């Protein structure tokens, strides 16, 4: 895609209407209060003996486990494994999904040929593949990457396929009349159009990659946060299980924020909800 020259970029792209400034937004503060209240409830119920700490853990002890993992640095190693599996699965699945989506989107005959196979593959519960991948790729990171890739692939594939098919025929005819070659069509029309669809599925895809990594570790591994949880369960250490879950949740949130950030940078051309509303009025 061409880029506007710097002088043009200096022009503010749009005027976003500012809502009349009212009182401070209390929602973030209320969220924190809600979180603290839930933790206190958990802690209180365990302390009062309503919940058995053997099964439900203790938030204070969970925090201690998390703290020890972080200070001793053990978590870094395991988290490093889980995150690299996640990112590799995400990258691989996305690239393969975009490729397959573009090819089948542009070749209706091939799409018809592959249709039942793709549906069947997508309908298979991918978790059952984990042992097979462990056999093929061993207990290292690659069996987890393979599992995550199969999950990510279909999410991205279906979105790109849809994106290619739903390109406006007027935009296509117009760009052809302007003299586009087949390669230009791919670069200037199909690819950007597909990209926007990919991004709408990216939150889903990164979540899938993460699930693939953790489940893969859980089913057989020697490193990773999933492995930590498995070990803790083996020794009936519920606090460590919860600690693992807390760390996974925080990671998932951070990954999701990262995707949102990339999305905002790359999809500036799409109307936001507020702008779409304005146009409708």
């Amino acid at each position: 895609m061409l880029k506007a020259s710097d002088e043009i970029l200096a022009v503010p792209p749009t005027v976003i209407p500012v809502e009349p400034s009212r009182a401070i937004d209390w929602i973030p503060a209320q969220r924190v209060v809600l979180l603290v209240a839930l933790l206190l409830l958990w802690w209180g119920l365990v302390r009062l003996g309503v919940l058995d700490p053997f099964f439900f853990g203790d938030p204070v002890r969970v925090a201690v486990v998390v703290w020890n993992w972080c200070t001793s640095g053990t978590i870094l190693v395991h988290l490093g494994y889980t995150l690299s599996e996640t990112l590799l699965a995400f990258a691989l699945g996305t690239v393969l999904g975009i490729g397959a989506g573009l090819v089948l989107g542009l070749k209706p005959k091939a799409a018809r040929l592959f249709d039942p196979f793709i549906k069947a593959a997508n309908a298979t519960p991918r978790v059952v593949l984990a042992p097979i991948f462990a056999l093929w790729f061993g207990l290292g990171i690659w069996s987890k990457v393979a599992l995550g890739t199969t999950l990510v692939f279909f999410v991205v594939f279906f979105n790109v396929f849809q994106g290619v098919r739903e390109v406006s025929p007027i935009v296509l005819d117009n760009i052809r009349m302007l003299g586009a070659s087949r390669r230009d069509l791919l670069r200037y029309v199909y690819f950007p159009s597909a990209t926007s669809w990919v991004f709408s599925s990216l939150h889903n895809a990164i979540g899938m990659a993460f699930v693939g990594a953790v489940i893969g570790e859980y089913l057989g591994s020697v490193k990773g946060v999933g492995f930590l949880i498995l070990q803790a369960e083996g020794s009936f250490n519920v606090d460590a299980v919860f600690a693992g879950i807390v760390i996974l949740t925080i990671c998932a949130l951070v990954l999701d924020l990262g995707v949102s950030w990339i999305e905002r940078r790359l999809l500036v051309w799409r109307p936001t909800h507020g702008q779409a509303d304005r146009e409708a009025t």
Partner: protein
Amino acid sequence: MSESAVDVRTPATPRAQPGEALRFDRVTCSFRSNSGAGLYTAVRDASLSVDTGEFVSVVGPTGCGKSTLLNVAAGLLRPTSGTITAFGSSFAGLNRDAAYLFQGESLMPWGRAIDNIAVGLRFHGKSRAEALEIAQDWLDRVGLHSHGALFPHQMSGGMRKRVAIAQALALNPPIILMDEPFSALDIQTRQMMETELLDLWSQDRKSVLFITHDLEEAISLSDRVVVLSAGPGTHPIAEFTIDLPRPREVADIRLSPDFLRLHTAIWGVLKEEVLKGYAQGKR
């Protein structure tokens, strides 16, 4: 749209030769109807020509196959029978001498205004810097000097049309095909756009084939107005030379007695076809 129609385009050079820029010779276009049974003939035995530097409007009842005719001229559609030539020679695939202004939204939603204009120039082998420079010049000419960084969704309908016009004209094509380009605009914007279009056109007098169902628009812009019959099997049934003086101010010219005389004459022919088309639409 056949895939073979896409090929690398050589830069369009305006050919100054006199004579006919476009010629439809007994063009017939049939489509397989949606139900699958039988053929629907949208255009039958249509002959029509546009001289070099001439502004020709084609008017006809709604849905009579006006756009089909334009798609044939663009090379987006092959006629079932008959021939179409540009400057005396037939073309395989797209008509490389023509630019096309579409009725609907034709800009790439993911491109800024300036990129949308520059993209065609890039296809024609211009360097990035050169393409952006020409695109900026065209932004100025269509009155969007400081709006090059806007995306289509951030622009009004009129601004998007201006960008589309700049996108087409920046390639300097000898023929311009327009398919009711202003029909989606409100009436004031529309008259302003028509005047601006005439200004741009009078600078270098390209050959224009302009499709509309708005007779006033057709008369105020054109050198010649062609009336089509109601579909199916539409074809030209009458031609009127518009001898109103140029330059014209679109909003004012509609009040002149000459305009009214032409309007009455053409409407006399068109009205019957509109009524026929309306009756068919109701059936």
